[in-house]
């Protein structure tokens, strides 16, 4: 039985999700709207929104993907807010995002779900049909440890400790080889687990100074060190990869950042500095196929706030950063899918200190020129007591690997056989989230 056949049969029995087979594209975890919601009479009818009908928009290069990891477990129930559910407001007396129309209220998306008001900079993408969410998604492992759950989401093998490499690095091996030192680019001071492995990955520091020329950029200096680092060991290899990548990135950056300086426009603040740079680099160097950045500060155990407050103060620069990335990609936005993930969600009920503790299900964000947006994907499990995972957290009905595997296959055009290598344990029961791309 090949994988597709397998999906059609076995996939249907997967972990409580209602999985609908759709033609040859595998299975969709489909928004239905028709089925009965786990809702009381006072609740608004469950609604997932209707995807915008539009044609595929051509980009100008090969497909690319950027993964943004929100480390610390963002509260997905306050990102994509089930404002149509009365129990949501009962469970979160001080931290619920108010209903649409109220001060600091959610921005209504579907009549049932709404967007946190601090994410308003992303609203235009929802309206243009280029932003979607997969709600009640995540890693099926029940760990509530940040560090373990991040590891699982990065290795792509939940529950398995001994995986050394990351799924993006394994995926990279199946992209057309361009012999570029910057095919995969991580922003930050280290290579994250998700990109660790045999494929060459470049990294680049964040912040304002990352693009300033340094001593090692002088040929005389890099030559002298080149002799010391001529060895075939990990350090020698890292040195040579570093010099090669730096040369590429510096030549791109010095021209593009110079142009801005000439126009007198300063770089924006915070995260947007980095996403501006990433967007420009990806736009001008089409060999950069994979991007990664991590944003921290989501572990809101206390004083989380509601439509305003601590979480809002972090979501807003994130939204600005993502919108900036989309703009700076320019025409390459049509070639790109930006995926935002977090290791798990947070408790459904607010804790004693105006915060939330470690939970389970979350929402995955999808932003891109050809994302079939303006809809919430996934199967909403509801929030009543019996529907909650272990009686306390949003349940997971879509495995994050279903989303990633769909993007790998449909967007990055990775072969079927390779998908099982990228998500090894998952190969057998591979589900797809159907139709998430235009």
């Amino acid at each position, binding site marked *: 039985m090949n994988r597709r056949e397998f999906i059609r049969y076995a996939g249907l029995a997967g972990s409580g999700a209602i999985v609908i087979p759709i033609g040859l594209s595998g299975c969709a975890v489909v928004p239905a709207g028709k089925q009965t919601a786990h809702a009381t009479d006072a609740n608004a009818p469950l609604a997932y929104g209707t995807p915008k009908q539009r044609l595929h928009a051509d980009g100008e290069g090969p497909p690319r993907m950027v993964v943004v990891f929100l480390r610390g477990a963002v509260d997905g129930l306050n990102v994509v807010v089930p404002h149509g559910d009365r129990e949501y407001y009962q469970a979160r007396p001080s931290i619920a995002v108010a209903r649409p129309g109220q001060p600091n209220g959610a921005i209504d998306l579907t009549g049932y779900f709404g967007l946190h008001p601090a994410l308003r900079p992303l609203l235009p993408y929802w309206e243009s049909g280029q932003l979607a969410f997969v709600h009640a998604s995540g890693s099926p492992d029940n760990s509530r440890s940040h560090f373990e759950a991040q590891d699982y989401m990065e290795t792509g093998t939940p529950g398995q400790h001994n995986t050394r490499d990351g799924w993006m690095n394994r995926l990279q091996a199946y992209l057309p080889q361009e012999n570029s030192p910057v095919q995969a680019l991580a922003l930050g001071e280290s290579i994250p687990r998700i990109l660790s492995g045999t494929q060459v990955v470049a990294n680049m520091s964040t912040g304002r100074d990352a693009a300033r020329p340094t001593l090692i950029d002088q040929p005389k200096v890099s030559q002298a060190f080149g002799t010391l680092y001529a060895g075939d060991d990990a*350090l020698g290899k890292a040195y040579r990869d570093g010099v090669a990548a730096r040369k590429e990135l510096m030549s791109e950056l010095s021209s593009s950042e110079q142009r801005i300086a000439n126009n007198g426009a300063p770089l924006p603040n915070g995260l947007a500095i980095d996403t501006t740079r990433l967007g420009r680099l990806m736009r001008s160097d089409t060999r950069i196929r994979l991007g990664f950045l991590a944003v921290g500060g989501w572990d809101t155990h206390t004083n989380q706030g509601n439509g305003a407050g601590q979480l809002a103060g972090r979501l807003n620069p994130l939204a600005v950063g993502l919108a900036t990335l989309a703009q700076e990609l320019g025409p390459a936005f049509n070639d790109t899918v930006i995926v935002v993930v977090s290791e798990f969600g947070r408790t459904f009920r607010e804790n*004693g200190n105006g915060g939330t503790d470690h939970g389970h299900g979350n929402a995955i964000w999808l932003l891109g020129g050809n994302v079939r947006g303006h809809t919430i994907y996934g199967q909403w499990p509801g929030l009543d007591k019996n529907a909650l995972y272990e009686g306390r957290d949003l349940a997971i009905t879509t495995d994050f690997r279903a989303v990633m595997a769909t993007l790998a296959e449909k967007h990055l055009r990775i072969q079927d056989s390779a998908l099982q290598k990228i998500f090894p344990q998952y190969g057998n029961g591979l589900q797809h989230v159907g139709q998430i791309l235009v």
Partner: protein
Amino acid sequence: MRAAFNTAMTGLLMASLSLLCQTVSAQALTTQEQALHVLNRLAYGPRPGDVAAVEKIGIQRYLDEQLHPERIALPGDLQNRLDSLSTYHLNVSQLYGQYGPPSFPPNGASQEEKNAARRRAGDEITPQSHLARLWLATESPRQLQEVMTEFWFNHFNVFEGKDWVRYWTADYEKNAIRPNALGNFRELLGAVAHHPAMLYYLDNWLSSGVNTPGAKGRFKGLNENYAREIMELHTLGVNGGYSQADVIALARILSGWTIDIRDMKEGSDSANFTFNPRRHDNGTKQFLGHTITADGQQEGEHALDMLAQNTATAHFIATELVQYFVADQPDPALVNQLAQRFLSSNGDIKAVLHALFDSPQFWTRKNYQSQFKTPYQYVISSLRASATPVVNGKPVNGVLNQFGMPLYGWLTPEGYKFSQEAWLNPDALLRRINFANGLSNGKSPIARAENTQPSAIVDPVDPLQLMQTLAPMLSQDDVITIANSPANLQVGLILGSPAFMKR
């Protein structure tokens, strides 16, 4: 200059040539290599003259001294400088009283006043706590104590940027971590659990038993944060055999472990920790298969006893120590041996380290010069080798920040990783090389007061002396390459060499 350098180098080379006649990998370390090895692992690398000094007193005596820091005197000059740091000697109440939010609760202070207080703490307390750490790391002769202080601080990580933690980070290190760094694990765990920096950082100070009389306002309910991390990160380890139910049970057991802000405002000396019975859940708990009945604060002490004596804890701590001192991939036999020692000695850290330094795995050539330095190890060892004094701590923390490892700057409780996998990447190597070159001319901003110009008469670092300081670290090929390079790059090449990236 070049000729003299080459002649001297040839001398150094000759000394090591005889080694090459035998299979290097199978050979025991020479005394000089052993000296470098202990200086790299028990200390933050050699300073000028250190290798010879260790050779002279003998490895065993060096190990013995380092395991008993109380027998080593701090230099008077270092002690005087530490004494001159005005905030370093304030107790937690004084720190809170002088730098804390202008009022607590209910309020009364404006947002501007609060921001001003926060800025003042950042401007005054933080640079002083950084200087104290950097001075001790680079200059203290009690190097193993400093290494273990970093190790345990990281194991029980707090983040200085989380509001009030900033006031107490230095006190936490000075009074909870350092005195226990080579002591008893249960006492260390207890000192951490009672310190306001940890109570605040992992929110336990807010946690109250559900429906207890004191559970109101911001102290309204149970907070699982600390209870979870004690088991996952401080004791049992993530697969140490506890469940979500145990997390909740421990949170209930620790409910009422808090900070008394009012006492602090009044300057009480003993205000670090308070047990508030009005916020404690007196119900019976099932914790790790044991029934815990109502016993106030003693419930928590008992739970900490259970955790400190657990075999999973012994195994977890032993694994971390082997990873730190021996190899990224820990040898299971050595881990088991150390875990046994941990249990048989009731968590005597000194006894466990003694067994570690006695083990053949610690001395095997395979594990010599094999660990990729963390950014902190790299920076501190560079400053020590080049004898660069830390006059201004800010550029040191600046470079640590660039390398992704700022002092007290890891946001989340698992602390920094100590592995090649975590730190070796292309960009990091290039940044280290840039930093190393900046130390060569003696004009580094680290070595002079803030906002002063470098002195015109300052001596550049002497490459020959640097090479002698680090002998026998470099291979003959490295020495030849360096000797044939432009003079102004030689120090950078030594400190930026692959050999100096390792320890």
